[in-house]
């Protein structure tokens, strides 16, 4: 396991093993937090029947307009490839100055507006886990593709994150979709 203090300043990169943390998922319909989920539970290695499982791990902040803009696109990818073994997760990032309750309420509003159905995760206590992935400068948007072994096979950050064509290409290749 890697801790933020051990992570490189640019955050986890392509070829690194993912770091595992538990966070609370949002119950979008009821508008509240639900149970704890762990990132590693969404990678394919634990499910031998679905070895091609692929995780798209996306980070967003309420104030990050490009992050919010790509939400419907990610929902589209999820709908298109979920039967092939794709999982999409979004993790909320907030700065130390942002209060959790207000952030959560606003995020719920955005999620509903954008029609997000895939799990969206929140950490009430810390942003250190997110910084581990994003790097100390917390450049957003940030999207990672993680294979069934828990290895980061692609990382798209900042402007790269808009290259949705390339993202879909990686998904199709890894899931062996013709």
């Amino acid at each position, binding site marked *: 396991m890697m801790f933020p203090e051990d992570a490189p300043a640019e955050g986890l990169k392509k070829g690194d093993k993912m770091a595992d943390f538990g966070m*609370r998922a949002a119950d979008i319909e009821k508008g509240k937090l639900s149970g*704890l989920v762990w990132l590693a539970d969404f990678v394919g290695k634990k499910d031998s029947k679905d070895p091609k499982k692929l995780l798209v791990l996306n980070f967003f902040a309420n104030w990050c307009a490009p992050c919010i803009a790509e939400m419907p696109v990610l929902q589209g990818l999820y709908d298109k490839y979920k039967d092939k073994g794709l999982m999409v997760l979004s993790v909320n990032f907030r700065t130390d100055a942002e209060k959790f309750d207000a952030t959560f309420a606003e995020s719920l509003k955005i999620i509903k507006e954008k029609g997000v159905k895939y799990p969206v995760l929140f950490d009430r206590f810390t942003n250190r886990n997110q910084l581990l992935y994003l790097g100390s400068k917390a450049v957003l948007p940030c999207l990672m593709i993680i294979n069934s072994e828990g290895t980061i096979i692609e990382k798209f950050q900042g402007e790269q994150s808009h290259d949705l064509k390339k993202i879909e290409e990686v998904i199709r290749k890894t899931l062996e979709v013709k």
Partner: protein
Amino acid sequence: MKKIIAAFAVMFFLFHAAGEEQSAQSKTKKLLVDKVEAAGVEANLAKSLEEALVLDIGKRENTSVVTSAEMQNVVKTAQLKSEMSCEGSDECLVEVQKKLSVETLISGKVTKLGDEYIFSINTINVTTKTVGERISIQGRDLNDLKGKIKEAVDVLLGVSKPRQMFKLKDGEELKLAVMPLTARGMEQTTADSLTSILSAQLNQIKGISVISQDDIKAMLSKAALDSSAECSDSMECVVEIGASLGLSKLVTGAVGKVKDTFVISVQLIDVRNADVVNRVLESYTGDDAELQNAIKLAAYQLAGIDYQALTGEVDFSFNVKKGAVRFGDEEKKFDKPQYSAAGLIPGRYFLKVRAEDDDYLPLQTDVYVAPGAKNVRTINILSKPTPWYKSWWFWTLTSVVVLGAAGTVTAVVLLQDTPDGSGTVTIE
């Protein structure tokens, strides 16, 4: 002829051996369950636990149980105790039980720590007058405690060893957090110090690394400031914090004081399954100086480490020069105000000190030997309160009264007997 003698000898041996075996099997152990003491809890709860204890022991093969109530009815124990002028001490009870030919005395005490009840039970060997097994069980209510009595009695009577829930395997790496221990009936600063000791002790165990208290406190304070989102119980919150830290396990607990009994309760929690994987409960009657030794022992128990080989030492000094000391099973006289012992198996020990000088009260207390540690203490033996007839104020008052009375009498006598010089003397 030799063959016949040999056959008889074999038969005699077999018959004798069978008889011995039968006698051993049918030998019934006589136990006495003393009244369970209610320390800061309802007397009915203590009574119900005593009944449950008697019921469980009574159901077992080769045991015969006598209750304190039965004993009192039969031999008027109270009267006996009073005659022996040793009310309230284990030693006295042992003497009483001897008269009843009971081998083992079982005594218990129930206290409350926060929302949980702690039921401590121990055995006293009547013959050797030593405290045998001790065990504490923890429960939310009477039924919860009752459900755990069987397992506790199994351990007390040596039927089974305490169930160890978690054991750190060789080569296993465990990174964990120790959450600040909750203080119950004592200062939070004491609990915070014990949290630090527990963290440091766990950190010293091979394979365990503990994340810093500063990190945890920073997160906890942020949580307290930051969110009013639902967090229905503390366990849920603690598990969530552990998950945020990316930890598979963490330690929570409380430390409390109920009357003169200290209780340390710590749990090892599996964060992923939100499950308690090991639970340690240490309770003792004695000085708060022993808390740090008790928590060090608890650290090893929590990690499931075999600490028997990590023997410890004690070095006690007393404020009396001569007397007798009983430490665990050992009893000896001392003519220097000091007692020390080494090579001790870590655990809780019973210490009794009796000064040769009759002006001091006997001292009975629990002390701990932590794994690989030396317990150095200065133990103060209290002097007996001075009887009123020996006190300075009594003699001062008496002197004043006596002198006053003497003065008054003298004055009265002098006044009455002195001629006033106004009489008439007639000379014929």
